């Protein structure tokens, strides 16, 4: 059932981003050719390059705005609005609904980041040989720093995981705020906003009380480690921290959807 939910959420994701992703990549490709006009040899070329760059930047910004709207709307309209009539009468468990929305949201964000990074490579007038040179340069750099290639590869994956975890925490915080807003019988949208601020404050206070001592303990632990293993440990501790906060947000959201849902 979870796979089926995911299938439908991913379809709505493709619907939402189906235009902006190719558009960003296409604009990057255009910039690759117009960028040459910036050398000042012709005013027309310069103007074209300027406009192309402006549109490209605007599209990238729009893409991330769409991503945030997507995350909020898929949850608010999809589970707490009219579409919730469908989703909550499907024979699935509430946690599956939340998890499917979350996974889709993180996937959409990561894909947007990938598109943004990819578009930069598209703009830069690089061929395959340039790309190979870049990699061999990075390789030599790591060798210089005495870092093995496996550590570098694992480290990259770890950083990506950390990124995903921090996106997840951010989105779950939004979900919890919307779910808390749903507990009120009136002004639910406004109460969601108030709840969002409330959750922020609460997590800061909690962080100060609970996490500070844990943090310094872990900090001293990590300080003892140097080089790659220290890096791995730091990243994993950070991921674990995000996971704990995520779990709290997720549990709160799931509880409200399971026991306190009131679609009126």
């Amino acid at each position: 059932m979870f796979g089926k939910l995911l299938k439908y959420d991913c379809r709505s994701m493709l619907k939402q981003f189906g235009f902006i992703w190719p558009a960003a990549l296409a604009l990057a490709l255009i910039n690759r050719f117009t960028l040459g006009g910036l050398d000042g040899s012709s005013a027309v070329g310069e103007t074209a390059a300027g406009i192309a760059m402006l549109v490209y930047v605007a599209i990238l910004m729009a893409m991330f705005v769409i991503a945030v709207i997507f995350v909020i709307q898929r949850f608010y309209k999809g589970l707490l609005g009219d579409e919730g009539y469908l989703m909550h009468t499907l024979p699935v468990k509430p946690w599956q609904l939340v998890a499917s929305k979350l996974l889709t949201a993180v996937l959409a964000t990561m894909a947007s980041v990938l598109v943004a990074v990819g578009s930069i490579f598209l703009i830069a007038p690089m061929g395959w040989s340039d790309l190979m040179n870049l990699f061999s340069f990075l390789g030599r750099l790591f060798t210089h720093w005495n870092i093995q290639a496996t550590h570098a590869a694992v480290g990259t994956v770890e950083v990506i995981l950390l990124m995903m975890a921090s996106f997840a925490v951010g989105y779950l915080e939004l979900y919890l705020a919307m779910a808390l807003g749903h507990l009120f019988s009136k002004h639910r949208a406004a109460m969601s906003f108030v709840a969002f601020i409330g959750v922020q404050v609460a997590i800061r206070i909690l962080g100060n009380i609970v996490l500070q001592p844990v943090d310094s303990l872990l900090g001293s632990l990590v300080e003892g480690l140097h080089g790659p293993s220290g890096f791995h440990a730091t990243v994993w501790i950070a991921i674990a921290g995000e996971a704990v906060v995520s779990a709290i947000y997720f549990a709160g959201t799931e509880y409200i959807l399971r026991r306190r849902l009131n679609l009126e």
Partner: protein
Amino acid sequence: MNDLLVTCTALTKRYGRKTALAGVNLELGRGRIVGLLGPNGSGKTTLIKILCGLLQPSEGAVLVDGAPVGPYTKSIISYLPDRMYFADWMKATDLFDLFADFYSDFDRTRAMSMCASLGVTPSDRLKSMSKGTKEKVQLVLVMARKAQLYLLDEPIAGVDPAARDFILGTILTNYNESGTVLLSTHLISDIEKVLDEAVFLKDGAVTLHDTVDAIREREGKSVDALFREIFRAHDFEGGAF
């Protein structure tokens, strides 16, 4: 299989200080068409939404086929809400795919033939459909399932008499014979002859629950006439009566 399909015990629902349901006790058997009758604001929609899990009761308990509301009960309930709930960019066939994916009792072939007899083109986008056509699509989705409990919230409100007859005909010819249909309405004269049982809901409480024939035999008048008598003090909406 449980003998009783639906059991509500002392079911109460409050919205803030307003009480929508005040201790409803209700038992429904299998294989019947039951009318949930009451004026607007009597708690019909609230009761139906609690049965399908969109609202949580303040007090009391609900059992559907012996189980509390959850994934199992949702898998045997087919619900027609009082509003449109799907994304506009989809086609009717996309919705059929979705229903076929999630409900093992959804009969795609039947859905397609119902579309044909209702004059709906299932490959059209919902966006391009009129309100009436969208309602028909929703009705097809609900009736093409071989569910144990059909919950139909005001299926004939706001449609013209021809469409009303068509909807009732669709319900009569398509519901699963061993399933129960619970349909809420305040337009009783139109549906009285399709009902087995009538449940009168007044101010959030069940005031009468009997078979239509027993009511007619005992009272010597139609359920509609009895309804008007009981609810005379109420202010009915619109010119429906």
